[in-house]
């Protein structure tokens, strides 16, 4: 398919996964991500691949554990309450070092929450999600085109590092339509999956997909190995966008939908003589610390983290800035989307009004 097509975010996720050679999708209906499942239900059987609606998000992630353990590319998707349910399974997948992609189309919470867009899963997904010492790459698109590109990258990252990879987008990204282009990509060479438990097929030693280590020494050794991998991901896979940061009165930190709103605010503020910049993390984990080192000297009044949450990413901003510049927060929650004017008012409060 050449050229641009108009697609809803959730459907674009499905199409991108298919193009990334995803062999199996295991889902469970939950708003606002259900269209991913519906798209896969329609497309996957027609091309001889697996679509299965599981009995729960728990079952779906454990089906991913099984399929991924045999070495096939597979994925699941859900929204916030369902992601909480997947936490146990993701911990097992990370410990078993199984490549897979998980999509979280975030909605308002806590609890059953709302079905409107939110970014309040930031803490749970960037801190690993389940129990134990681990992280997984978390990619946050800000357009449907970027969603498509990141889904395909996510499958590659998963295979290269043998890790679950999360693509997290707020409900707005899942529900809105934008033109997208599925660019021709040459498939990268991926490591051979000699570890896969897909039948001996003449192999003399059996492969085991396992996360149990009854003794502490081998368990710690697993953690040492995992931490080495996480360090490599931190060194090689950080992604972010810097926008308009030179000589800024204040720099926004925002991802996904809020980053787009902040870009509008940058335009509004310019008309009033206020110069604003933006750090847009694309990888939420690893968090782009480098973007702050680069911009620390460029911002007069520090950073303003703008989120659709009650203040989650701002913790990582503070932990990165370490008091060298002021770090402030503005957010709406529960499914509310920040208004550009309200953000601008907050900016004026911080930079001392129009100059």
């Amino acid at each position, binding site marked *: 398919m050449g050229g641009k097509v108009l697609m809803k975010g959730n459907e674009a996720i499905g199409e991108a996964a298919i193009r990334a050679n995803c062999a199996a999708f*295991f889902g469970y209906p939950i708003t606002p991500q259900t269209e991913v499942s519906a798209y896969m239900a329609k497309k996957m059987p027609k091309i001889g691949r*697996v679509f*299965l609606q*599981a*009995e*729960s998000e728990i079952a779906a992630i454990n*089906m991913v554990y*099984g399929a991924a353990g045999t070495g096939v590319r597979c994925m699941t998707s859900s929204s916030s309450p369902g992601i909480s349910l997947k936490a146990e399974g993701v911990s097992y997948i990370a410990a078993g070092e199984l490549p897979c992609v998980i999509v979280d189309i975030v909605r308002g919470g806590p609890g059953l929450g709302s079905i409107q867009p939110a970014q309040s899963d930031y803490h749970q997904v960037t801190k690993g999600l389940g129990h134990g010492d681990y992280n997984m790459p978390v990619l946050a698109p800000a357009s449907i085109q970027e969603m498509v590109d990141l889904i395909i990258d996510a499958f590659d990252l998963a295979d290269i590092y043998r890790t679950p990879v999360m693509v997290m987008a707020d409900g707005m990204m899942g529900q809105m339509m934008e033109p997208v282009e599925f660019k021709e990509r040459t498939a990268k060479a991926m490591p051979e999956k000699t570890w896969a438990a897909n039948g001996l097929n003449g192999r003399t030693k059996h492969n085991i997909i396992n996360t149990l280590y009854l003794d502490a020494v081998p368990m710690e050794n697993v953690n040492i190995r995992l931490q080495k991998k996480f360090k490599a991901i931190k060194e090689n896979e950080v992604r972010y966008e810097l926008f308009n940061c030179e000589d800024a009165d204040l720099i926004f930190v925002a991802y996904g939908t809020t980053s787009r709103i902040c870009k509008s605010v940058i335009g509004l503020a310019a008309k009033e003589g206020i110069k604003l910049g933006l750090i847009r993390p694309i990888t939420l984990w690893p968090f782009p610390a480098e973007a702050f080192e680069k911009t620390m000297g460029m911002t007069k009044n520090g950073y303003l983290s703008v989120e659709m949450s009650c203040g989650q990413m701002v913790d990582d901003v503070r932990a990165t800035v370490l008091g060298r510049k002021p770090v402030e927060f503005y957010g709406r929650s529960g499914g509310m989307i920040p208004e550009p004017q309200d953000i601008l008012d907050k900016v004026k409060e911080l930079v001392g009004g129009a100059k």
Partner: protein
Amino acid sequence: MAVVFERPKALIDVSTHYCPGCTHGIIHRLVAEVIDELGIVDKTIGVAPVGCSVLAYNYFACDMFEAAHGRAPACATGIKRTNPDKVVFTYQGDGDLAAIGAAEIVHAAARGEKLTTIFVNNCIYGMTGGQMAPTTLPGQKTETSPYGRNVETEGYPIRVSEMLATLDGAYYVERVSVDTVPNVIKAKKAIKKAFENQLAGKGFSIVEVLSICPTNWGLSPIESMQWLKDNMIPYYPLGLKKDKSTEEVK
């Protein structure tokens, strides 16, 4: 000299962690003998549960998974759906399958997943030291039913085989026991059928195996076999609960 008895090739030559007198050893052996006889070790993938048989992945020579507690049928579904030419079995205890994994086993059966499940029922949680299971009998004393299971407060045991046999997706359901030699022979026949069904592309097959737990029952192995016969078999009657192949003949 002719060898008349030896370790099945599908079992690795290691000593197991099972308690003296435990019947997991017999059941492992039966599964391994069936894998050998069907010549499928090369294409079999097993899924171990959480519970006493958690380390089964160290004992079976085929490729193995260790699943999260209760999730073996979901894990096996993921394996089988993406590898339909492979033979996939789960080996699960009663806590794993009938309590925390009740949803997964019911839906794997309802979907008619082409899997083989070996369900070992010994009326107790063994690995954690003898707590009440969904299969613990009325009046049976355990760590968490120290005065005997009171059905008023702890409810009734679940007859898993009878429950699953009601599902259209279940192809073959049989309950067997390993308390006597004739019963062990019957158990092997049932396990073999459950694997043969999968090889023939048929739906979900489960064999419930009544088993003993001398350690947590506080009985000797011989007393345990008697206890199984006197208490478990009356509550969990042995025999075929469902076989769609005979229904097909009709």
